[in-house]
């Protein structure tokens, strides 16, 4: 029943992951990483893991991204790769 959504979102997730590690700007990485977490959350929800989805939503989309941005704020956006 849910497999089409699962399939599509999973593919998006892979895109996001690749993009997140290949962007040449750490803030961009942070933002894409947030997107990656959104997708993941969706994926968990699709698979019926509501608690995991909730946690991923709160952690991945929320605090993780904020920590990331905070760290980038205190360090540097520069990255060579």
């Amino acid at each position, binding site marked *: 029943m849910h497999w089409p959504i699962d*399939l599509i979102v999973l593919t998006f997730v892979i895109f996001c992951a690749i993009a997140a590690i290949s962007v040449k700007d750490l803030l961009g990485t942070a933002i894409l990483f947030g997107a990656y977490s959104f997708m993941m959350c969706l994926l968990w929800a699709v698979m019926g893991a509501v608690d995991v989805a909730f946690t991923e939503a709160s952690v991945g989309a929320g605090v993780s991204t904020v920590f990331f941005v905070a760290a980038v704020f205190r360090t540097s956006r520069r990255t060579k790769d």
Partner: protein
Amino acid sequence: MTDLLPLIVAKYNYWLYVILMMIGLYAMIAKNNLIKKLVGMNIFQTAIILFYVSIGYKKDATIPIIQSAHGGGHGAHEAAIHAADYINPLPHVLMLTAIVVSVATFGVAMALAVRVYQRYQTLEEDELRMRLSEK
């Protein structure tokens, strides 16, 4: 073609988890920037979570919260509960813990990255190595 689709659906999650994990691992090993590595680390951990959650999924089953007729409070268990109706909760439990662990690690790692930057003014590994060998 008709045989292929069920096969893909049956294993798609497992294959993609491997790919995701490879992406994460590659980033952790090959990337030059420490924060990039951290992102790789997180992707790696998420891949594992994906794996576990995929284990737990059951076709035609609902989320692992027992459905009571009127949703009413404690102890309302009228009908017998069939295991096949609910998704396996155990992997979810494990992954909750794993997510928490990963966010804790992530926080500490970020703090470390800030410290490293304070000290060396860079996060690139090759530059760090250069700084270290200077002394």
